[in-house]
């Protein structure tokens, strides 16, 4: 069974993400410090709220360095909401410097008819990715946020998996190899959300198998169940 470490740093509701990951057949361990990552096949960083207090808590728990190293290593990683935003270089919300694994910043969702952006909205595919296998282009996912990431530099377009419109278009999912981040909450997005998490767990499982078989490169998309 795929073992998923969910980072617990006091930034929001872990119950729903833990239960959703269990519902798709993974074993969940809450990671409160560096040792909590030991033995994990995949890492999930959830979170709601502002970047500065979240970074402060990660540092206090000795987790900022290990999370950055994990995300940079190419091992399976999923950032959700604030967990996606922390992957970038900094946040305009409070000026915090964040993990800097991906190029770009978190910026306010200007021009939105209402903020926070709360509710179900469409996730429009910009390129195919095994994380979104079996999910219709334009499927609805549940959002709760006022800021969104803006990937920057030459790799920005390749990083963008999906976009969503709320006043303006913003990046709602990114991916690079086995590193993914989503602005929406798959754990609160019904069947499609569970499908995304099942895909993530299956991809992490592939990774574990291929690592066991003498470092054979990962074999692309394995669909969860069609």
């Amino acid at each position, binding site marked *: 069974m795929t073992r998923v470490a969910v980072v617990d740093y006091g930034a929001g509701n872990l119950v729903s993400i833990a239960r*959703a990951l269990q519902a798709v057949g993974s074993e969940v361990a809450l990671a409160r410090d560096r040792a909590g990552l030991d033995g994990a096949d995949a890492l999930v960083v959830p979170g709601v709220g502002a970047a500065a207090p979240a970074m402060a808590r990660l540092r206090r728990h000795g987790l900022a360095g290990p999370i950055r190293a994990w995300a940079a290593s190419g091992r399976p990683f999923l950032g959700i909401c604030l967990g996606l935003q922390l992957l970038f270089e900094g946040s305009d919300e409070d000026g915090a410097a964040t993990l800097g694994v991906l190029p770009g910043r978190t910026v306010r969702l200007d021009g939105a008819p209402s903020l926070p952006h709360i509710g179900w909205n469409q996730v429009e595919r910009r390129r195919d990715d095994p994380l979104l296998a079996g999910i219709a282009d334009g499927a609805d996912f549940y959002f709760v946020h006022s800021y969104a990431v803006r990937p920057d530099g030459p790799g920005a377009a390749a990083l963008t998996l999906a976009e969503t419109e709320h006043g303006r278009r913003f990046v709602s999912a990114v991916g690079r190899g086995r590193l993914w981040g989503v602005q929406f909450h798959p754990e609160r997005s019904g069947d499609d959300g569970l499908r995304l998490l099942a895909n993530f767990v299956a991809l992490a499982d592939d990774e574990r198998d291929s690592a066991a078989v003498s470092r054979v490169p990962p074999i692309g998309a394995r669909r969860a169940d069609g």
Partner: protein
Amino acid sequence: MLRVRVIPCLDVAGGRVVKGTRFVDLVDEGDPAELAERYARDGADEIVFLDITAAPEGRATMLAVVERTARRVFVPLTVGGGVRTVPEMRDVLRAGADKVSLNTAAVRDPELVRRCARRFGSQAVVVAIDARPVVGGPIAHGRPADRDAARRGSWEVVVQGGRRPTGLDAIAWAERVVAAGAGELLVTSIDRDGTHAGYDTALLRSIADRVPVPVVASGGAARPADFVSAVREGGAAAVLAASIFHRRVHSIANVKAAMAAAGIPVRLGRGVAA
């Protein structure tokens, strides 16, 4: 495009779903977790549990219900009733709820809204406003009632299921709790609750025009057309109903189909016909 949410509300007492007319004559309608799961399958965009007894001794029962539901329902879950303090709200969120709805406790202690929003974020704080039309002119609540208010109508906030008037003007109260950090308002026309007379769209519109946060329409839904009116005329961002869903008078899919036909953006998931 952001969807208008359709939300079934489950009134919970003693660990069971109940429904009565105007909060009395309660009838047992089933197990909360089971009903919530059925609704999620039928396309519910969110589930609301209201602990209508809200007695201190019932808190543990309600937490157990939330916990049980959160294991099998993967859409947002809002819980109202019985939360009076920040630690009580924390317990409900830890049990698996995404939002907590404050009603009587906010009227008694308006600063509670601010404290909860500061601790958990505005997105987790809903204020439920039960309102009743004022006959014979608007409430002045400390300043002269203006002519506009007299023309558009005026509503008073009531608590304890409508049994106790508060003297608060519903629109002014809505503005006040939003300023304090409420991320959403659940506006119930208490006289229409359970009557199937349709939503009070004038009340909804009066509040929706004054606050930037989503207004959830509640109280009186009977036909799919009522849901359309709540959005079109009332300006609601979400529509909530209880008995018509519990008694299978209309399915969530029916309601969504009617809304979609009227040009309202709704989420049409698996098993929901467009």
